[in-house]
Structures are given as structure tokens and as C-alpha cells.
């Protein structure tokens, strides 16, 4: 039941926020904060109350009949993987509410309604264990996100939001066909109509069908992640979205793609995924290099940060398709740390834009003297982003490279170049924006206490993940073992 509450509280808070805006402009913000805080507590209770027996990896689950005619269940469950994603979701949710505290001045109620509902959609995606429910949540989280971009976005918001929606919807429908195909093939071999994840695992498929269905899933997650040929929505959507939207896009929506690959693509179609590995790894490396190069050549600060996401998420793909413990641990670490570091960078860029009303790097420069705290934070998160040892991103990317080294030395070497390239773009960004002469004679206020608090917490998080990542890895371990067990058998067949 507690899992239902997680979603219901967010949905309810969204409605309350929308209604309460009539009486007060501050009330929606506090309601949203309170809802996420309650969810934090509930998640902690799930953690405390988890059963440690070996029989199940689920900490907690709910399973209701939903549409019996089709064998659809309302099945939510949480394991170590989902748990980590939930924590990240609520953490970034709070950041998103705080960072729009002064940025969003119009239509506050409806803004928080969408914010809460997009979080509810994301939570459902991370919890759904019925493929129909998963698809349902997958599509549903799009709509509030679309509204966030299209109503509160910047100049080209309609273009960006529509592009975002069309890309995800098209790939999502391909996934729906793949889900249905899997559903009917499962029925053919077993006589049971079901969308249940655990039952669909190990469905016998011809290798051609398996590859086709796997590709249907892969495309949907590749668009979200994003993988390079289908990434073009990302720079536009991230750039045009309001700060909170960018934080949620980069920090959470991209992670649903990684989560989908981890949870569904490889376990459901181990042989096809194995067959596909060389392609996926190559795409990952292309993404790492391409993202870095593109980031280097941007003059729009927000677009720059957006392209770094393409690069970082390439590591996630690399780690997942290496499919060994190191690679998987690296992928999950990268997902979490990227959420923090890139989320923080977006908050900073948003804060900067609120102050100087531009994102153009050419119009910045010499800001360090004016806003030392802000600049120092930016330096910190840039360093995190370029993979400085001691900060979380380094751990993630290092583990990924260790994992992929076992699979392909050549690709690992090229991917390492991507880390090198990240040094260039991160330092260029710092130089252009914060160092040098203040040619535009800006006069700005430094971080407000609210912004300072966001930064402090995120700094602490990245330091913790950088120096002592073990709790995260321990939490992930049982779930990872479980995922690997599902893949093991066919992989052994292939190795012969």
C-alpha cells in the first residue's frame, strides 16, 4: 500500500497546489515541498521495513487486478534499483521546487500541479512491474513535462516541447507494439495472457522475433537516454525548459531510459541484447565523444550543459551493455551522480539567467568577483562533471570503463578520450563565464540562502558519493545479482 501512497500523495498534492494558488502564491510551493518530504519519509520506511529474506528481492509490492480481460495488473514493486531511483527522484524533486521559488511568478498553481504530476509519473515508471502499467506511466509522465516546457519555457518553447513530445511518443508507440508482440508470443508458448514482468522473463522467442522486439524497447529507451542518432530533441528541450524542467529532464527523465535498459531490455531479451552489444557499445562511445565535442562548441550555456548530458549518458549505455558487475555498478553510479552534478549546473545556469537574462557565454565573463559563491559552486560541479577523483561522477565513469575494458579494449580507450574532452568543455565554460574581465559591467547579487542551501546539499551528496559510494553499491547489489541471474543462462549458451 505504501507504494500507492507514494504516487497518490504526489497526485493529490498537485491538485491541492493548483487549487490553493487562488489564495496564496506561496502555498503551492509549500504544499509541493511537504508532499515530497512525506514521500521521503515513506521511502525511508520502505527501507527500514524491507524483508531481508533471500526469497524475494522486492522490498515492498502491491499487486491488484486492473483489466482482467487482458491480464493487466496494477503491480508496483520496489527493489534496490528502484529504491535508489526513488531517492534520486524525491531529492531532485525538492531541488526543482526550490529552484523555481523566484523564477516562476506566473501561473504558480498550474506549474506545481505539473511538477507534482511529472514526479508521480516518474515514480510510477520506476515502480511498475506490469508492462502495460509501465507503458501507461511512461506516456503519462510526458504530458506534464510537455506543459512545463510549453508554458514556462523560453523563446522557442513550442518548437522544443513539440519535438520532445513527438520523439518520445513515436518511440513509445514502437515500444507498445513490442510489448504487445511479446505478450502474444508469450501467449502462444504458454497459453497465458499476461503483462507481468516476472512471467514474461524467459519467454521463448525465435531469435529474429527476439531481436525485433528488443529493438522496439531499445528505441524507446534510446530516445530518452539519449543515444546519439535520436538525441536531437534533448538540446532543444533542455535549453528551452524552465530551470525546474531542465533539472527534472536531465536528472530524472533521462534516467528512466537507463532504468528501462537495465530492467527490461537486457533481462527480457538476453540473447538479442548480447547480439546487439557491439552496436550498442559503439553508439555509446559515439555519444560520449559527440556530446563532448558539441558541448565544447556551444555558446549557449544551457545548451552546453545539455550536451554534456549526451556525453555522460553514453557512459551509462556503455556500462549497461558491458553487462558485468563493474559496468552495471558504474552505470547506476553515473546515473545518480549525473543527476546531482548536471542538476546543480542547471540550477546555476537558471540562477544566472534570472540575474542577467541571458544564457549567451559571449555576454558573460568576469563574474567570479561579483558572485564568488555562485562561481565556486559552478567550479565544483564543473569539476565533478569532468570526472575529478573524489567526486561521484569519477567513481561512476571509472567503474564503467573498468567494466567495458573486459568487453572491448578499443572502445574503452576511445571512451576515455571522452573524459579528456570533458575537461576542455568544463574549463572553457568556467573561463568564459566566470573568469576574465567583466566587460559587460554586470552588477549581480550572489547566491541567496535558498540557492546556497541547494548547492550545499548537492556538494555534500557528490562528495559522499565520491568518497564512500559503498552504500549505494550495496543497495544495488541484490537487485543487480537478480538481474544478472536472469541473463546468465542464455549467456552461457552463447559462450560455447
Amino acid at each position, binding site marked *: 500500500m505504501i507504494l500507492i501512497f507514494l504516487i497518490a500523495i504526489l497526485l493529490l498534492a498537485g491538485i491541492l497546489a493548483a487549487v490553493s494558488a487562488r489564495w496564496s502564491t506561496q502555498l503551492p510551493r509549500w504544499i509541493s515541498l511537504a508532499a515530497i518530504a512525506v514521500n521521503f519519509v515513506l521511502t525511508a520506511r520502505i527501507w527500514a521495513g524491507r524483508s531481508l529474506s533471500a526469497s524475494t528481492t522486492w522490498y515492498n509490492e502491491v499487486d491488484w487486478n486492473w*483489466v482482467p480481460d487482458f491480464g493487466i495488473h496494477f503491480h508496483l514493486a520496489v527493489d534496490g534499483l528502484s529504491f535508489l531511483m526513488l531517492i534520486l527522484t524525491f531529492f531532485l524533486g525538492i531541488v526543482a521546487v526550490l529552484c523555481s521559488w523566484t523564477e516562476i511568478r506566473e501561473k504558480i498553481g498550474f506549474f506545481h500541479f505539473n511538477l507534482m504530476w511529472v514526479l508521480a509519473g516518474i515514480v510510477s515508471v520506476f515502480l511498475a512491474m506490469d508492462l502495460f502499467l509501465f507503458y501507461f506511466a511512461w506516456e503519462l509522465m510526458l504530458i506534464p513535462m510537455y506543459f512545463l516546457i510549453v508554458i514556462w519555457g523560453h523563446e522557442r518553447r513550442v518548437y522544443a516541447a513539440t519535438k520532445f513530445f513527438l520523439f518520445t511518443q513515436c518511440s513509445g508507440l514502437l515500444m507498445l*507494439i513490442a510489448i504487445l508482440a511479446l*505478450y502474444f508470443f508469450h501467449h502462444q508458448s504458454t497459453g497465458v495472457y499476461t503483462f507481468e514482468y516476472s512471467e514474461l522473463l524467459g519467454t521463448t522467442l525465435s531469435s529474429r522475433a527476439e531481436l525485433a522486439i528488443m529493438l522496439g524497447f531499445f528505441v524507446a529507451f534510446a530516445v530518452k537516454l539519449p543515444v546519439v542518432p535520436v538525441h536531437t530533441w534533448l538540446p532543444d528541450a533542455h535549453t528551452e525548459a524552465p530551470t525546474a524542467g531542465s533539472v527534472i529532464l536531465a536528472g530524472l527523465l533521462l534516467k528512466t531510459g537507463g532504468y528501462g535498459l537495465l530492467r527490461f531490455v537486457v533481462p527480457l531479451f538476453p540473447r538479442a541484447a548480447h547480439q546487439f552489444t557491439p552496436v550498442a557499445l559503439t553508439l555509446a562511445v559515439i555519444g560520449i565523444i559527440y556530446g563532448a565535442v558539441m558541448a565544447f562548441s556551444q555558446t549557449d550555456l544551457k545548451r552546453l550543459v545539455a550536451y554534456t548530458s549526451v556525453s555522460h549518458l553514453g557512459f551509462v549505455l556503455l556500462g549497461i551493455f558491458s553487462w558485468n558487475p563493474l559496468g552495471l555498478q558504474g552505470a547506476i553510479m553515473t546515473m545518480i551522480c549525473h543527476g546531482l552534478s548536471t542538476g546543480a549546473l542547471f540550477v546555476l545556469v537558471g540562477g544566472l539567467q534570472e540575474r542577467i537574462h541571458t544564457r549567451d557565454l559571449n555576454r558573460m565573463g568576469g563574474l567570479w568577483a561579483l558572485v564568488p559563491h555562485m562561481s565556486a559552486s559552478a567550479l565544483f560541479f564543473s569539476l565533478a562533471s569532468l570526472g575529478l577523483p573524489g567526486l561521484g561522477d569519477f567513481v561512476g565513469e571509472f567503474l564503467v570503463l573498468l567494466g567495458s575494458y573486459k568487453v572491448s579494449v578499443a572502445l574503452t580507450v576511445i571512451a576515455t578520450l571522452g573524459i579528456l574532452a570533458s575537461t576542455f568543455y568544463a574549463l572553457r565554460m568556467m573561463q568564459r563565464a566566470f573568469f576574465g574581465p567583466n566587460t559587460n559591467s554586470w552588477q549581480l547579487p550572489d547566491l541567496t540562502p535558498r540557492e546556497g542551501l541547494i548547492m550545499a546539499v548537492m556538494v555534500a551528496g557528490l562528495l559522499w558519493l565520491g568518497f564512500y559510494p559503498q552504500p549505494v553499491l550495496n543497495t544495488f547489489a541484490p537487485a543487480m545479482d537478480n538481474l544478472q541471474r536472469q541473463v546468465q543462462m542464455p549467456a552461457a549458451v552463447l559462450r560455447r
Partner: protein
Amino acid sequence: MNVTDTLALLPLLLLAGTAIVVMLGIAVKRSYKLAAGLTLTGLAASFISVCAVAPLVPRQVTSLLLIDGYALFYLGLIIASSAAVAVLSYQYFAKHEGQREELYLLLVLATLGCGVLVTSVHFASFLLGLEVLSVSLYGMVAYFTGRGQALEAGIKYLILASASAAFLLFGMALIYAGTGTMAFSNLRNLSLGGSSLALLLPGIALSVTGIGFKLGVVPFHLWTPDVYQGAPAPVAAFVATTSKTAVVALLLRYLGAGTQESPAVFLLFSIIAIASMVAGNLLALRQNNVKRVLAYSSIAHFGYILVAFLAGTTMGAGAVAFYLVAYTVTILTAFGIVTVLSTAEADAADLEDYRGLFWRRPVLASVFTAVLFSLAGIPATMGFVGKFYILASGANASAWPLMIVLVLTSVIGLFYYLRIVVTLFSEAPERQSSMQRIEWGSAFVLGGLAVLLIGFGLYPAPLLTLIRATIGALN
């Protein structure tokens, strides 16, 4: 024909009776309220009788009509949607001067025609139903004789419908010459082959012209945008939902098995389906008139329905039924919103009329957003479950090419639905357009439709059970 047969026919008899009572009522005392009241009472009685006769079915009444679960399901849908149109019309036509009472007479007659279509298993009743429907629709489409667009739409519909009916008649003649029977059931059992094929296939092709015209599928779609635009909004709603529902229900009875037995028929409908999905969605892209967008999107939606029709089996029939309910609810809501926003001078059809609607009338705009998402097939709406059902039936029949076309074209469709959504949520214009008050009747209907739209989108199980119980009677 015995007493039980008559009882089974009660829904149709009540509809016919209502038409007479409304006509006499108008003759005795010309009162708009009275005509509307009599119509709604008649429709309600007919709807109740649909539920009441359920235990008597299936029952063949003469060789023309078959009352079974399938027919009752569609009868219920038709009568309910017709009643919704009647309520929506009330506020709409109340704003207008002149003689408005006959509209209800025509509405009941058109509903009767639809009822005959869904129960017919014979070409004679097919043609009768179709003509009763068409003739009533001519009058309804051109009801505002003062408006040029309405007259144009009416004439267009009249000429094209007559032409297609002529094709249909010729097709029937060929089929009769080839098989010596006019009953659908004999046609279905007939293995298509031998010497009669030369007459039969052209006959089927010609009869498809008549059906395709009513459905507005490509290449018989040319009338759709003009009629939707020119007709009064509630009438357009009726054309879009009730009349099309009836024809689809008939098509399934008539050729449901034929597509499986004859590759030629399957190919014919595949081409129509693909052309409709592609053309409908592409043509809608550049429209700035909401009614025209709905017209083009309806072309595409009937392409989707044909995919389920082609998938065949009980699952395909179920998918068609669910999609029709979803489509009816969605389109009635859409036209309902157009209706309540319309003024006495003109319908609220221009996209600009909807700019910033959300900030002026949040509830109405939210419902309209739900409608557009339902048309686009986004979850939590009936349209999504419908599309899911169609894709499921397609996957069941391994109709992969059709499904891929469906998916790709519906992404194109998304583009123009989103354009309307953006308009709803963009900044309101300086000039505040006059606020139309919504009367309680329209509000009640719109609210109910919105609840259905979301309710069955979230929890479709009851409707699915009903469909399973009734549509199963088809095969």
C-alpha cells in the same frame, strides 16, 4: 412475426413512434421545449427497452432484421449518443430564431435509420436504413438555410450521398445476380470462388463505395471537411459519431468474414485503411479550423478502426466496438465544447477562438485537452485504451505492416492535436471574447462525457466485460 418478435423490435418501434409523436406534437403546438422534451423522452424509453429486451435475444425478426447482443450493443450506443446530441442541440438552437422544432424530428428519424442499419442482415433493410439516415441528414446539415456554408455542405452531402447510394444499389444488383441472395449470412458462408466471382467481387467493391462514403474514408472522404465545417456543431457531432457508428456496425456484419476469406477484399480494405490513416493525418496538419481538424482526424480514426476490422476474429470486433465507444464519447465531447462556445452568429471553429481558453475557462479547456489527448491516444483516456485494443488485435492477427502505419501516422496526428493544446494554454488575447454561459443540460452532458472519457480510460474493465458479453454474439 409473433409477439416476442415484436417485443424484440421494441427499441426500433419506440424510435419510430417517437418520430410520429414529435411530428404530431409540432402540428398541434409549435413549442421548442415540447419537441425537445418529447424527443428525449422517446430516446430514453428506447434506451430502456434496449436493456429490457436483452433476455429475448438473439432473435431473427423477418429475414431483414436480426436482434442480437451485437445489435443491442450498438443500438444502445447509437441511442445514447443521439440523446447527447439532442441535449447539446437544445442550447445551440435556442439561440436561433425561426422554426427549430423539426430538427428533433429529423434527429429521431436519423437515429431510426441508424438503428435499422445495425440490426439489418439483408440488403433491403441495409438500403432502407441508409436512406432514412441520409435523407434526414440532408435536412439537418442544411438546417440553417440562411448560412451559405450550411447550404453548400447540405448540397454537397446530398449529391455525393445520392451518387454513392446509386453505386451501392448497383453493387447489390451484381451480388444478387452472382449469388441469388440478398441476405448477408448466405454471403458469408459462401466460399468466394467459381464463376460467380466475376460478379461478386465488383459487387462488393461497389457496395464498399456506399459504405466508404458514409464512413468518410479515403478515397470517399472529400465531403467530410466541408460538411463538418458547414453543418451546425451538434449536427456535425451526429454525422461524425452516430451515423458512422451504425455503418461500421453494419460493415462488420456484412463483410467481417469476407476479409478473412477473400484476399482481394482484404487488400481492398488494407488500401483504404492505409490511405485513410496517411491522408487524414497529413491533411489535418495545415488546418486552422477546429471543425475541419476534427473532420480530417475522423478520416484517420476510421482508418484505425479498419485496421481492427481487418484483424478480424472476436478480438478485432471487440476492438472496433471499444474504439467506436471511445471515439463517440471523445467526439461528442469535442463538438459539445464547440457547441457551448458558439454564438448565435457563428460556430466557435477558428483556432483563434480557443487561444488562452485555459486561463479563462480552466475546466472547459481541461476537458478539451483530455479530448485531444484521447484522440491522440495518450494514456488515462478512452482513446488510449481503444488504440491499445486495436494494436492488440492487430498483433493477434500479425498484421504488422498495418500496425506500423498506424503508429507512424498517429505520431503525425499528434502534431496537430498538440497545436490545439498549445493554443489552449498560450497567453490569452487582449480582446476578451464574450463569455458564453453553459446551460445545465449541456453542462450535465459534457460533464458526464468527460467522466466517461477519463473513467473508462483508467478503468476500462466494465466496458470490456460488456463488449465481451455482447459482441461475442457476432461470430
